């Protein structure tokens, strides 16, 4: 051993660092992790199990290489700064047998790994979604669980088509109007393989719910090869866009809420309704739609007037402003050609691209503060492009210069869009290291 004191010190430091790395790796299990038995999706667990094997092989190989290096260092290192004149080892130029051996052995090992890989790959890419029955508008229909996932700068849209639509053959712009459209949060039944049709309206994004399965890019003009997710227990599972997609890439998140079948049915039923307005307000809306200029009488009606004036050309809110919204009008105003559907805003737990909670996970109250901040100045929460593109289209939510009054009114309107999700789901959306309690969601 020839190392100087300084190198010895450095070695010791290295050992300490390495040890602390290993220790700390075991401490925490955050929500996006791809490792461990807590993964909720059979696919994710399958990948993880396979990876563990490979990692052990890698550790072994690395230990071998490092071991040989350190052994050589200790045993073959010379003392002193320079060579003795005649201190020469045996001059070995090589050994063909050894060479062939260590070419062939890794090749065989990798071939074996390759075969296993193909098996896992095959199973991940095979579909065996089985149709389930869901109740749509009081009618029971058989639904092959497929969700169209559409990325745009910087949020995700999820479309549910219960009718006889071949969603994997169509471009997103030409699909019929979906039965249910949500933003940033996908709701799925537990224990069902859900086929995802992932695409994009502008740039490439990548849809990733690590706890359920690996990721798949959302490529504009292309429908992804089928990709599936499955959650085998209820809960809220987090995701993050993983393909760099521009300015607010880091603020493009999403969640999957897995519900037991009855709750899922209830969710569908609620999503098929419009906004629950009282009779007066409904009449007020009808008057506005008919072209009368009725004066708003209360906060809700003021909110509706504001919404129709400032929001409705991009956002759809069924029963409040559907007449003002059309796919074409949005395509003219926005680069992506879509803005989140707000009809059931408060039935979700997250907004602004999945980075803020609709309902405070601690108190269970409607998150007025964040929402107010968002309405006053969206760019302060999620960075946005401010200038229009060459065709005069916007990207992201502009600052609409709303007054305090308007903001308050709109928050009131958004709160009733409901129905409010279950307390367990609201609690689980808090981004915290999971405890036993909230990791399980509602069990």
């Amino acid at each position, binding site marked *: 051993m020839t190392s100087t004191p*300084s190198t010895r010190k*450095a070695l010791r430091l*290295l050992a300490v660092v*390495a040890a602390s790395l290993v220790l700390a*790796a075991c401490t925490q299990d*955050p*929500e*996006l*992790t*791809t490792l461990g038995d807590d993964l909720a999706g059979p696919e994710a667990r399958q*990948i993880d199990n*396979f*990876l563990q094997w490979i990692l052990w092989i*890698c550790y072994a*190989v690395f230990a071998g*290489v490092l071991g040989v*290096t350190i052994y*050589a*260092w200790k045993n*073959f*290192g*010379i003392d002193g700064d320079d060579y003795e004149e*005649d*201190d*020469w*080892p045996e*001059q070995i*130029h*090589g050994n063909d047998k050894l*060479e062939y051996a*260590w070419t062939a052995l*890794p*090749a065989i090992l990798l071939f074996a*790994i390759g075969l296993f*890989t193909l098996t*896992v*790959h095959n199973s*991940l890419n095979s579909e065996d979604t089985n149709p389930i029955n869901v109740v749509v508008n009081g009618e029971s229909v058989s639904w092959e669980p497929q969700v169209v996932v559409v990325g745009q*700068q910087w949020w995700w849209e999820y479309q549910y088509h219960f009718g006889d639509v071949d969603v994997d053959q169509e471009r997103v712009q030409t699909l019929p109007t979906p039965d249910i459209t949500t933003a940033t949060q996908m709701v799925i039944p537990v224990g069902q393989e859900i086929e995802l049709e992932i695409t994009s309206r502008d*740039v*490439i994004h*990548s849809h990733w719910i690590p706890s359920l399965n*690996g*990721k798949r*890019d959302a*490529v504009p*003009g292309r429908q992804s090869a089928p990709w599936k997710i499955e959650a085998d227990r209820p809960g809220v599972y987090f995701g993050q866009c*993983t*393909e*760099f997609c521009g*300015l607010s890439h880091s*603020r493009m998140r999403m969640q999957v809420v897995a519900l037991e079948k009855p709750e899922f049915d209830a969710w569908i039923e609620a999503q098929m309704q419009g906004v629950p307005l009282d009779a007066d307000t409904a009449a007020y809306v009808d008057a506005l739609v008919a072209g009368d200029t009725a004066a708003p009488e209360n906060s809700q009606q003021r909110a509706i007037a504001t919404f129709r004036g400032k929001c409705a050309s991009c956002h759809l809110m069924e029963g409040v402003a559907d007449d003002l919204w059309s796919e074409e009008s949005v395509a003219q105003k926005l*680069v992506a050609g879509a803005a989140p559907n707000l009809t059931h805003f408060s039935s979700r737990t997250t907004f602004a691209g999945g*980075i803020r909670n609709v309902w405070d996970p601690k108190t269970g109250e409607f998150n007025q503060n964040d929402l107010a901040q968002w309405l006053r100045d969206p760019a302060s929460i999620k*960075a946005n492009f401010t*200038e229009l*593109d*060459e065709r005069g289209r916007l990207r992201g939510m502009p600052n609409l210069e709303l007054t305090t009054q308007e903001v308050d009114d709109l928050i009131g309107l958004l709160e009733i869009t409901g129905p409010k999700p279950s307390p367990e789901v609201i609690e689980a959306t808090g*981004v915290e*290291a999971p405890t036993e309690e909230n990791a399980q969601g509602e069990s």
Partner: protein
Amino acid sequence: MAIIDRPLAIGAGDEAAATADRPLGDLTRPKNSESWRDWLITVDHKKIGIMYGVAAMFFFVIGGAEALLIRLQLATPNGTLLSPEVYNQVFTMHGVTMIFLVIMPLAAAFANYLLPLQIGARDVAFPRLNALSFWVFLFGGLFLNSSWLLGGGADGGWFNYSPNSSVTFSPSHGIDFYALGLQITGIASLVSAINLITTVLNMRPKGMSLFRMPIFTWMNLVVQFLLLFAVPVISVALFELTFDRLFDANFFNTEKGADPLLWQHLFWIFGHPEVYILILPSFGIISEVIPTFSRKPIFGYSFMVFSGIAIGFMGWGVWAHHMFVSGIGPISVAAFSFSTMFIAVPTGVKILNWLATIWGGRLRFTTAMLFAVGVVSMFTIGGLSGVTHSIAPADTQQTDTYYIVAHFHYVIFGGALLGIFSGFYFWWPKMFGYMLNERIGKWNFWLQIVGFNVTFGPMHILGLQGMSRRIDTYDEDFGFEFWNLVATIGSFIIAAGIAIFFYNVAYSRKEWKKAGMPNPGPDPWDARSLEWMTASPTPEHNFDEEIIVESQDEFWHRKYGYDENNNVVRIATAEEVAQDGSNHNVHLPSPSYFPIVLALGLPIVSYGLIYSLWLCIPGAALIIYGFVGWIFEHPDDPNAAHDHHDDHGDSDDPEAVEAGAEDVDVDEVVAEAEEELVAAGAEMESDNG
């Protein structure tokens, strides 16, 4: 005449047989002088190599500063040091700078300096084209970085996927700078690849068969072939991007039905060989360092060579593993997953051969050796995590997370950069005539390797914890805080290590001068290959006379032989064997103004394309002037001997080598260097309508 510089094969005396023609033009070539101007007009491969190194280290400081900014931003959750706009530019430019303006040119620095020396040649095949390569690279790099001063750098990531790179989604000029800047540096790489391949294939001395070449030369030959074939692919991709952005073409316009995966395929068909372009020079460097400091020949020379070639070949069949989640279809994924795995085989062969070289040797842990051994173990980590990516299912979880960031930094920092530092310490005395301080060097090494592991080791964990790449901020509760802080601390340890390297350079130089220490001599390390067979620093003419090569590791075999028991015995000292560089009679190619003139035109044309086509006119004029001057330049210093040497006799007086005695016209150079350039300029303009 002087269109193409004549091969500078070193004759043992019967040189200059080729006929000198009547010179075509009357422009006289500048003469060598000792002033700084000499560096601007030099065509000496050693000076060009050093300039490559200096320029690359300059960009290295810029890229490193960008890296520190990234780490500072991510040190704590919800970092606010950089705005998202700036962050996106910083990480993009960090990647582009480090890959295209640091690692590639550093490798080019070594290749330029050492390839001719290692094969015992006097210069590269086309000295002026060599100068052109450097200046084009330098101006391309400066052009690229000038975007910081002109409204911000590129913000699409170094991979720059369409359609995020279109004008709609990136309206600033950053990506125009990216596309044109990389196009320019691509020209430099292509010209240099043709030049160096020709040099290696054509200019070896007697007896140096391909299989007697040092491994460093071999690896660089493979790299130059990879560049030769990979650069045109990225050129086309960049042309298409440029035309899309500047002239509204539709290659990546999804609104007109373009397929964004076209960019990805073209980019990665270039991009994967690019990975080997980055790493193989370093493999070559440590294949020289490890045998020298183990006092053993490289173990399994032919396997080392063939595994390098195999890596080069296989590198062309694996590009789509960057696209496992892009939606290329399960069959393509399976095929590429399988092919990718097997690239680990030749890489593994190399690692095992290095270990076998060390095994049973007499290891002297100089700084160069420490860095080399560092490469072996650190690159192993990078290679192994690479195997986990080749497993397509696992890759669907890992790709675009920090696990990937960890992986490629272990490959590019742990493999390529550490190897380059090994090369610095190893060849410094040969290049500059003084040794770098070993004690400081060891601090440099340990800080760098500890800092490196503290920075990038945790990123494996972060990636598997689910931290995405290219995010400018993360929330508190995902559990990313601790390891990000550790990584940031590590990055500053690296910075300290690099700073110590610069300090070492300055300190060692000063000490050496102050102490009046003797020249380290031709062979300070008791090394093995031909570059050590001449004085340090290398004299301008490299070798006094041609070296007749009889074996691999020729220099070593001239110093040592075997006794009857097969023990190594010295038969000569290095000083006895080496040439002292005293031959001042060697005729060298004259310097030339025109490489730098021609190269200067390229960024001007590029600015013109971005800002105003009028600016293209002076740029193009400069390029044309460069070409015309190049062609009509006097072949040589008119005062130098111009007589026709047809006498084959007097071998004791090594004679002038007639530079540029061969006659080739306009055509050749135009074809080589201007090809892309003309295509770029003319095409863009013609397509503008």
